[in-house]
């Protein structure tokens, strides 16, 4: 595509899933115990979106990637120390909660508003990327709502693969029920692509990319606008973790048949 894409990735942090997550009721509603102490990672769905965006931008000359992140400013800063080394992007930061209890409608509203405010963004070249189930407690609605607010009609959810074809059209593979794919083609941007997995591994850390990104990241964090996306007016009747039954063993290189046999035996009790 001539001039390249303007790719806006919506992605923020989630508590590192390996941490001990304990829901509590705080003064502002449901929260996680010691949330500010827990390390965070980029939401894995959004991570796919960001890496795919960077890969596409590298291939299509003239492209640019923005990362629009909504999260507590201090935690965003910490996340950026790792993330900024991965791929080139320009950060648009919004200071607000990202603990899993935000309301999708409100999140979509503030993200759409932030995207509308990006200087130099060409909406005709816009590819709006994000995680397919991000900021929605797995409901998969946030990216759709952002797209609607921005007037982007072509929306693809649970995307695993995007190919830019020779004529500039976009070939998109979406996963659907039954382990099958829906393959669609649209003429080109603007489009919303909510990523499920993607095909790219986590990029290596590059000191040069990090230094380049950081020059703009720190000012962006300092300018982060406070936003309200809490669950005001929404009552959570109960919040609890799934019951765990942990009998950990780590066994490497076990044959698939053996693993299957063991699982069947375990289910049979």
């Amino acid at each position, binding site marked *: 595509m001539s001039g390249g894409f303007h790719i806006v990735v919506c992605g923020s942090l989630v508590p590192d899933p390996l941490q001990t997550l304990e829901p509590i009721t705080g003064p502002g509603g449901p929260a996680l115990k010691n949330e500010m102490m827990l390390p965070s990672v980029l939401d894995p769905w959004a991570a796919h979106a960001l890496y795919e965006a960077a890969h596409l931008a590298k291939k299509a000359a003239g492209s640019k990637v923005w990362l629009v992140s909504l999260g507590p400013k201090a935690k965003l800063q910490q996340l950026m*120390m790792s993330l900024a080394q991965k791929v080139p992007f320009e950060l648009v930061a919004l200071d607000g909660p990202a603990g899993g209890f935000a309301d999708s409608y409100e999140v979509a509203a503030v993200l759409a508003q932030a995207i509308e405010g990006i200087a130099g963004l060409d909406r005709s070249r816009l590819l709006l990327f994000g995680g397919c189930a991000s900021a929605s407690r797995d409901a998969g609605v946030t990216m759709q709502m952002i797209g609607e607010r921005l007037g982007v009609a072509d929306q693809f959810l649970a995307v695993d693969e995007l190919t830019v074809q020779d004529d500039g059209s976009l070939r998109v593979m979406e996963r659907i029920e039954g382990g099958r794919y829906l393959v669609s083609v649209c003429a080109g941007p603007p489009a919303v692509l909510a990523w499920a997995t993607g095909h790219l591994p986590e990029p290596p850390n590059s000191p040069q990319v990090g230094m380049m990104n950081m020059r703009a990241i720190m000012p962006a964090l300092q300018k982060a606008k406070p936003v309200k996306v809490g669950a005001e007016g929404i009552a959570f009747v109960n919040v609890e973790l799934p019951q765990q039954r942990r009998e950990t063993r780590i066994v490497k290189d076990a044959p698939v048949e053996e693993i299957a046999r063991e699982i069947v035996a375990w289910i049979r009790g």
Partner: protein
Amino acid sequence: MEEPANSSTSLHVERQSMEVDIACVGFGPAMGGFLHTLSRALVDGTGQPALPSTAMPGMPLQVVCYERADDIGFGVSGVVTRARGIRTSFPALDPAQIPMAHPVTKERVLYLLDPIGASRRSASLRAVDALVRAFKWMLPYEECAVQLPYVPRFLRKDGGLLLSIGQFNQWAGAQLMASGLVQIWPGMPVSGPLIEGDRVAGVRLVDQGTDRAGNPDVGYMPGMDIRAALTVVGDGPVGPVGRQLDDHFGLPEGHHRRDWAVGMKMVVDLPETCPLEPGTVLHTFGYPEPEIFGFLYVYPDRMASLGIFVPSTLDSPARTAYRYLQHWMMHPYLWRYLNGGTIRSWGAKTLQESARRGEPHLVGEGYARIGEGSGSTNVLTGSGVDEAWTTGVLLAEGVIELLKANKPFTEENLEAAYVKRRRTSWVEKEGRAAERARIGFQRGFLTGLIGMGIAGLTGGKLSLPGTSKRPYERIPSLEAYYKGRISPEEIEKIRKETTEAGSSMHDALMERCGWPKIPYDGKLLVSHQDALLVGGKVQAASGYADHVVFLYSHLCERCENKLCIEVCSGQAITPGAHGVPQFDREKCVHCGACVWNCTMPLDGDPEHANIEFRAGSGGLHSAEN
């Protein structure tokens, strides 16, 4: 002659290079002190850059710090500290601003007796124990423990702080990053120093996209060379940069690094019934083995940090920190507080206990050393974080002086600006007093305690004579160690069975000697693997070379003890083919215990053994330590 394993990590490939002014290695308390102090001098009163960059003309001074761990909060330690240096840097410090921090309110030192009868105690210690039990009615005796009537002054942390190093690092690092004056990059291991002649010209970052042997693989990206006028090394006691500098420049005459310990700890949620108040500090000694010291610090919100130190003077060829930690927690004195608690976090690290006697060359052409790897830990007061922080502050003050005077970072200038400051500091004064405090432990536990007392009470003016043996020189064979308790035939049987099962021997050996099985409760008493997953959240990304390398297979084949397997804090080292242990990077917590526990010295190089600990990625992912 056999080539050392995995030598392909020093591949000659074309590498990218980047110029900065100051390259820093390792973000811990020492680097926090350095960067905090330096960053305050980087802008003037109007917020304009005060010190210009030479590497990037027209820009402010370029200061970059590379940290191996995946986050700057993944440190391993709960600490009690007088916090003199930290408070000098933050005069208005409010502990409530640092998660888990709390002022010290109470301190107790406890001698733990052996409630089981399995601890390996000398005849003289058994006599002491018998006396204690006989006179317990007139002693502050409770639940198989005696509380010392007072805490010796040298151990006290009056007015001090309890800190989680993970949280303290996050707190200090966040302020640095927010200033925008320095850059800290986690998840970026440094492979080694760039040594040109006798000058350190920067550092080389680790290769990415390699196989386990370091050979180029998918997405290969050779580690970049970061060239700098000054390289600040604060990568701890087993950091590859510091160790390579020691190998190249040697240690000052009379110095050595033969005294070590592995510290293993947990952060736990205390049961609701626990009466211990925030700020309480318990120090223990005497159990599970006499040489093992323990600690329990009570944080706010019913959390506590607890753990043990297993020193290199515990001469067991099957020493293990994890199993001993569980027995220590279950000591009746402690278990009444802990029973019903839940593990939140877990981790381990090596401590360099030669301290000032292990001090390396603090400076050279283009480099300076700070922190624990620079010999700043005080082994008498049991304190290292505040000392490390202060060494960083002292170096920063010297660096600022040199930058303002436009003087280069030569050995001579760094000697005058940093080493001179350090020699007149409280770190040095107290470090000298502690220098020989633990030498008595080379001859036994009671002698060690007496020596520590003498050194502590005389401010280091008096100490016991003696020298430190190399760790491997202290380790007897399993057969000799268990003589009279387990027959050589049974040891051989256990060795065979555990090798076939791919596991360590210590559980079987300890249980055979009377240590009871651990009654796992799934909350605090959990399997070692669950401690890794639930507590340490240990993980490692692919695409990096193994950082633990068994150099010469013939030495491993000859090794009978395989202490590396026994001591490994993460069960990352297990029996392997043909007698060469295998290493699983995904379980490694980077404690470095394998390095000093290897019992096979290299031919012609008695200070080095057969395990090399290189730069590596991954490890703990818990920030609550």
